[in-house]
């Protein structure tokens, strides 16, 4: 990429220099009536500006092909790779770790220093999985054209993930968070994810939560797979991928974000599939209770 930018800048400078020289030197002067020499062409010059670009293209082509094949290598079943099955939905991301038996959503957690091998597919329309700071993007296609690719990083941190293929009204809001943590933390995270579900302490609220939320969502070992997994949502960096929590630039308290979402999901992500809790018969009090419960559902890792 650096090579291509360098070559291109050189090309730009050459062309611009010739253009500026010509435009200054060969302006028509007042009273100029003679007819300039009608040059048909110049074989030597024309060969030069055919051959030099050809050579430049060749110089660029060699590393390009090398990189393409390196990128195309399938590391999915290699020893030491952390497998992640990514499934994209309108408008959220599901991450499954088949080696660990863990499923989560909206926040991809992985250990530093290891090769993270992705298998990408979609549950509905085409999306494209992209973590700009870490790697290029890859489309998530339906069954039959599933893609694999991998990346790794040594730097711990929180990165932005995005959807890069038009997928409907909320395409622009289909972000997710990527968290690179050290291998120890990752193991702790896996253990915490596998721990039994923590339900609201208030019995009545727990019932409501089970009835209204867990028919689609899951926490720990309970609930369904249709909607994003909520295990440990209180310790994530964002709610719904775009309502940033405290600690992020412009972030707000988790509970506030959860309430914003629960009060009117369509206002946050137009066209998403979640019914408004109020339409399911939840009262403001119950919504507040659930937001409070989820905000405090944290994982230690």
């Amino acid at each position, binding site marked *: 990429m650096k090579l291509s930018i360098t070559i291109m800048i050189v090309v730009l400078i050459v062309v*611009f220099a010739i253009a500026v020289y010509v435009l200054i030197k060969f302006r028509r002067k007042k009273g100029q009536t003679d007819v300039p020499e009608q040059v048909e*062409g110049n074989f030597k010059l024309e060969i030069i500006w055919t051959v030099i670009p050809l050579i430049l293209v060749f110089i660029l082509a060699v590393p390009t092909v090398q990189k393409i094949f390196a990128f195309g290598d399938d590391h999915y079943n290699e020893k030491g790779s952390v497998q992640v099955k990514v499934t994209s939905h309108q408008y959220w991301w599901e991450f499954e770790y088949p080696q660990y038996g863990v499923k989560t959503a909206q926040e991809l957690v992985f250990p530093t220093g290891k090769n993270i091998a992705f298998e990408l597919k979609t549950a509905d329309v085409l999306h494209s999985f992209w973590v700009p700071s870490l790697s290029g993007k*890859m489309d998530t296609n339906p069954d*039959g054209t599933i893609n694999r690719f991998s990346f790794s990083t040594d730097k711990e941190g929180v990165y932005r993930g995005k959807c890069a293929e038009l997928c409907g009204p909320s*395409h622009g809001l289909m972000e997710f968070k990527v968290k690179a943590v050290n291998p120890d933390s990752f193991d702790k995270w896996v253990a915490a994810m596998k721990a039994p579900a923590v339900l609201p302490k208030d019995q009545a609220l727990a019932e409501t939560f089970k009835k209204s939320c867990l028919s689609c969502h899951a926490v720990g070992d309970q609930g369904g797979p249709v909607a994003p997994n909520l295990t440990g949502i209180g310790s994530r960096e964002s709610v719904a991928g775009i309502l940033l929590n405290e600690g992020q630039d412009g972030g707000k308290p988790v509970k506030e974000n959860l309430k914003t979402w629960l009060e009117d999901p369509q206002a946050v992500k137009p066209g998403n599939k979640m019914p408004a809790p109020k339409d399911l018969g939840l009262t403001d009090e119950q919504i507040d209770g659930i937001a409070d419960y989820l905000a405090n559902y944290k994982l230690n890792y």
Partner: protein
Amino acid sequence: MAHAHSVKRHKGLMDWLTTVDHKKIAILYLLAGGLFFGIGGIEAVLIRLQLIKPMNDFVSAQTFNELITMHGTTMIFLGVMPVIFALMNAVIPLQIGARDVAFPFLNSLGFWTFLFGGLLLNLSWIMGGAPDAGWTSYTPLSTTTYSTTHGVDFYTVGLQIAGLGTLIGGINFLATIITMRAPGMSFMRMPMFTWTSFITSAMILFAFPAITVGLVLLSFDRILGANFFEVSNGGNPVLWQHIFWIFGHPEVYILILPAFGVISEVIPTFARKRLFGYSSMVFATILIAFLGFMVWAHHMFTTGLGPVANALFSIATMLIAVPTGIKIFNWLFTMWGGQIRFTSPNLFAIGFIPTFVMGGVTGVMLASAPADFQFHDTYFVVAHFHYVIVGGLVSGLLSGLHYWWPKMFGRMLNESLGKLSFWFFIIGFHLTFFVQHFLGLMGMQRRVFTYLPNQGFDTLNMVSTVGAILMGIGILFFLINAIVTAFKPKGVADDPWEDGRTLEWAIPSPPPEYNFKQIPLVRGIDALWKEKMAGNKGMTPAEPLGPIHMPSPTILPFVMSVGIFIAGLGFMFSKEDFSNSFMSLIFNNWIVVIIGLLITFGSMLLRSLYDDHGWHIEVEELDEEGVKA
């Protein structure tokens, strides 16, 4: 003469509806293209206003997707294509020394089907929602499961009808250029604009059937319940991407080649020098067209085609830089040693060169698949193709319009207004799109209706929106210029730029309906310039003065297009549940489709059964009204 004056000459509106004269059809194309270009431009400004700040709610997410879809579709198919056809119609018969195109009836049919296709597509705004799946309309997003309005139906049916017109036009120009060149004009003496239009027409011939097939498949999926792209029934969405881009990539060369042609006419004229390396220009054009068909999958590097395909398509794409580079250097060396005049057409042509080079180098960067994994579907791509299509193509078209305006209308555009619109346009353009490169590199995806703050996007987006408004002002100045000029009296010289080189500058502006009183004899490249240098006043005629055979005006192409329009609407709504029983009777039983097709095929039958031999303009009349249009 048996047929002399047996034809009725229409007046007013009827004249325009029935004309088969290539010069009038050119003006129709220009008006229609201008209308759609305006609509597409307003959509562009609305898009930029929405993106002026993060988390803006100027338009809703759904409306935004409709705007980007219609902006892309309208600009490509209905905005710039007809303006290209306007220039081709206005100029090519004149440049090759012909009295009209090979098939004047088809020429008119091509225009009217294009117009009705375009109108159908834009009707979607007031008939339940515009298409919203992007101009590429990728499945499954564009299938009935995920796009529930009739928007995408308007897209498939409207573009099929409009595409028919484009295909007809392409075939017509192929036939015209092959068969109707004046005596002495060999292929290697043709003006560059004629050459590039010739190649573009050939590309249309091969590329448009692909999109037509794709659109037919998609409309069958949507309306008749077929399963070409339905995953659950074994269809394959990647198939759509292949079909779309097998058309889509050649399409961008279909668009840009005529602009190359315009630049190759304007620069020699205003440098007073012949085009440098004419034959290498011709071969570069052919090579670009050939390679243009070999690179479609570079739009699909992230689809997951595997390293072999990605490598091949990367290299093939980079190769296109070579012939394009040849062209750039040839233009620069045409000016080298010349006497450059900075008229408004030449300003647009000179502005074209660096702008297009920038679009070209980002193209080579995108061609490298590993880099494209980062760039793909970001604002870097948006910047790249706007540099090529707006900075390149639209500059080229504006250059051509300023250049040939006196030939088309007999009036010079105002030079000061022309220069003003150039400066607003070019500065606005670079403000809008240069910063978008960086937005893309920083991680802003394309087609997002809004973005979160704190990503460093805010200022650049603001700059981009301001630029878009400046560019809009530039286009407005051009519009004002055109209107002001229309009220001035006609009467410019045959060769108003004084240094015209090609045949169109040898005849009056605007030309009489028969163009050439006598078909000229061409004695070399730049036929008129050659005569000027030999000290001759005009072209040597290749034939004695005689009666001129003209085609008759006819309303049939218009009626045929109305028929297709009605059939298209009927087809789209054939499965709709109407609350009104009369509506469901006529739509659900295909009655509307049948009526539409009857009108079209009936007109065809009429055209086949009724022999129209045209009419003649007599020698006496030629002598009397020499200059009349």
